[in-house]
């Protein structure tokens, strides 16, 4: 096999996610009454980016063969926090942003500590911490309200040079500043290794615990970025339980669509971003097609079902039935 074949093999999941997204987005745009205008792109970008942050956060944890069922709640908690402190003059605003991101990291770190040092199963540990984070969000925002520095908010949800949605730029910055360094670092490698085979990683002297801890903590950071963006997008904070759990569950769908293996060790946050945008587009389809409103939820379910089933086409290629079992 030549080098590029190996490259293709490594990136297959990500490319699959990209393909699904492009396909859906093309269908969406083709049927959109306004077509691909700057406004439409900006709307799609803003909506997708929020979710992409949460999906990236989920990816980091899923890579370690864990799962974070509290991402959505961290997202909500940081949204509520940001609606208090990301206000005022540039300096306090900046400090507020830092504090919000730090809060997200703390939440992620707590998850990490429970899973790694408490040796709890991630699913249940994060169900429990998710409840705690939501409780804190409710304490911060018993009812919707608050505000945010609107200049900053408009800048980050607006457009650069009149065409490029600035939220996409922010997302790219997160990829470059958080994801790529993580992936190329020793800790990131450790996170992958631990997810792929914890036993083997341990015996190879990989710093498993630090790697996983970094993954959980950075997941908290990314979720907090999502929370910040939610605040920028809505100018307010709201402790919405349903939307927190919705983001959590859909983030799992997004990572799978983006080619990240739920069994750990495989996949990329970039893929998850495409997965997130693809998942968002399933909702947009309802907008462009004239479906009876009561049939919309069903249609969305069916589209999701089809999207997640696409991966099983690969089954047709399986010639050794033992390959069914991972």
């Amino acid at each position, binding site marked *: 096999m030549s080098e590029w074949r190996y490259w293709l093999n490594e990136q297959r999941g990500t490319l699959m996610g990209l393909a699904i997204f492009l396909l859906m987005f093309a269908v969406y745009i083709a049927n*959109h*009454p*306004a077509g691909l*205008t700057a*406004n*439409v792109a900006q*709307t*799609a970008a*803003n*909506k997708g980016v*929020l979710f992409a942050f949460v999906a990236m956060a989920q990816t980091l944890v899923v890579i370690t063969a864990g799962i974070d069922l509290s991402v959505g709640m961290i997202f909500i908690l940081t949204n509520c926090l940001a609606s208090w402190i990301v206000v005022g003059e540039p300096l306090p605003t900046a400090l507020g942003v830092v504090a919000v991101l730090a809060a997200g990291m703390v939440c992620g770190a707590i998850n990490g500590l429970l899973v790694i040092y408490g040796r709890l199963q991630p699913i249940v540990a994060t169900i429990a911490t998710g409840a705690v984070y939501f409780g804190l*969000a*409710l304490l911060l*925002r*018993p*009812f*919707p*309200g*608050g505000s945010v520095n*609107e200049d900053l*908010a*408009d800048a980050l*949800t607006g457009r650069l040079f009149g065409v490029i949605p600035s939220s996409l730029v922010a997302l790219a910055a997160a990829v470059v500043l958080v994801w790529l360094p993580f992936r190329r670092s020793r800790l990131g490698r450790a996170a992958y290794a631990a997810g792929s085979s914890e036993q083997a990683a341990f015996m190879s002297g990989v710093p498993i615990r630090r790697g996983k801890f970094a993954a959980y903590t950075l997941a908290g950071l990314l979720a907090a970025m999502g929370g910040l963006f*939610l605040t920028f*997008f*809505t*100018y*307010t904070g*709201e*402790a*919405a*339980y*349903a*939307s927190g759990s*919705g*983001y959590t569950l859909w983030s799992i769908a997004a990572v799978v669509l983006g080619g990240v293996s739920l069994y750990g060790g495989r996949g990329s946050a970039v893929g998850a971003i495409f997965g997130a945008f693809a998942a*968002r587009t399933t*909702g*947009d389809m*309802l*907008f462009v097609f*004239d479906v009876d*409103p*009561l049939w*919309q*939820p069903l249609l969305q379910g069916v589209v999701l079902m089809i999207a997640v089933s696409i991966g099983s086409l690969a089954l047709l290629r399986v010639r050794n039935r033992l390959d069914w079992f991972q």
Partner: protein
Amino acid sequence: EPEIVSGPAAEPECFAPWAAETKFFKFPKKDGPYRIALANGFIANTWRIQMIQTAKAYAAQPDVAAKLKEFKVVSTGEDVPAQISAINNFIDSGYDAIVVNAQNPTAFGPVIKRAKEAGVVLVAFDNILDTEDAINVNVDQKGLGVLWANWLAKHLPEGGKILEVRGVAGTSVDTDRHNGIHETFAATGKKWDVVEVIGKWDDPTAQKATADAIAVHKTFDGITAQGGDTGVVQAMIDAGHPFVPFGGETENGFRKFCAKHASEGLKCSSAGTGPAQVAVAIKTAIAALEGQVVPQSIKLPLAIVEDPNFKEGQDYYPDQSDNFFVGNAFPTCGINFTAQEIMGQSKENQ
């Protein structure tokens, strides 16, 4: 965009201003027929389903249909950004008016700005928008709490032990109603011992919470619940709790109980606003597009029925679903849907 004018509104009985200082809008007249969109959020509960059915039924009424080129409904779920984006998309696609049941009253600042710039009429109802730049078709949520508390105070002049079954935490509707209740009690100067449990506007949850509260606190002198009321009464019956005065919502099942057990002490005040308010919102949107004067904030009348006035076939429907929300008449607006019209709307499709 709209001109701020002085009242009264075009149909003053229907488009009643919220308060004395409410502004009035006069949008530039557009020629019909119009493209109107309904941006709904959550859909999977009876209230919302009924609301959408009503909206479709209203838009299909011949005199309304004549004015509409297109009526499109999109439900985006619980996620606020998705709803905001849907509205943005409607604006970009050139709809004339957008009717919205907002997931969050404070989150729509930027989109309201955009609608204004684009000259799109934005009308919010049920969960309204925290703004002066869009039209709100308002339900007085806090007033509802006040009403219930007053009802209880009337029946319990000396105060007493009250069970308050609350809604979904973190929402403004829950908070407003709760505040209304407590402020009113406090104003009476009597001693009220209020036990709060959370029913999440959901019958089974409310029923469980009520059953537990009764098991531990034994008896209450009065009850108020802001949703899931059928479950609350069911729990009382199951536990053999004596019937007491009750201030609650407008579910059909609750009213059935109220009518049946009134003589045993279940003295109810059933108040709220049915899902038919969506029709008022659409009517307002059309009026605004036609260049008529409308208030920025419209006060919807509450559909109130109080003991002993529960009438079968008008205030409640014995053979309709318990989950059905009654109170779909806004006579001042010429809107009156019967249960059959709403729930049976597509029966012929079967």
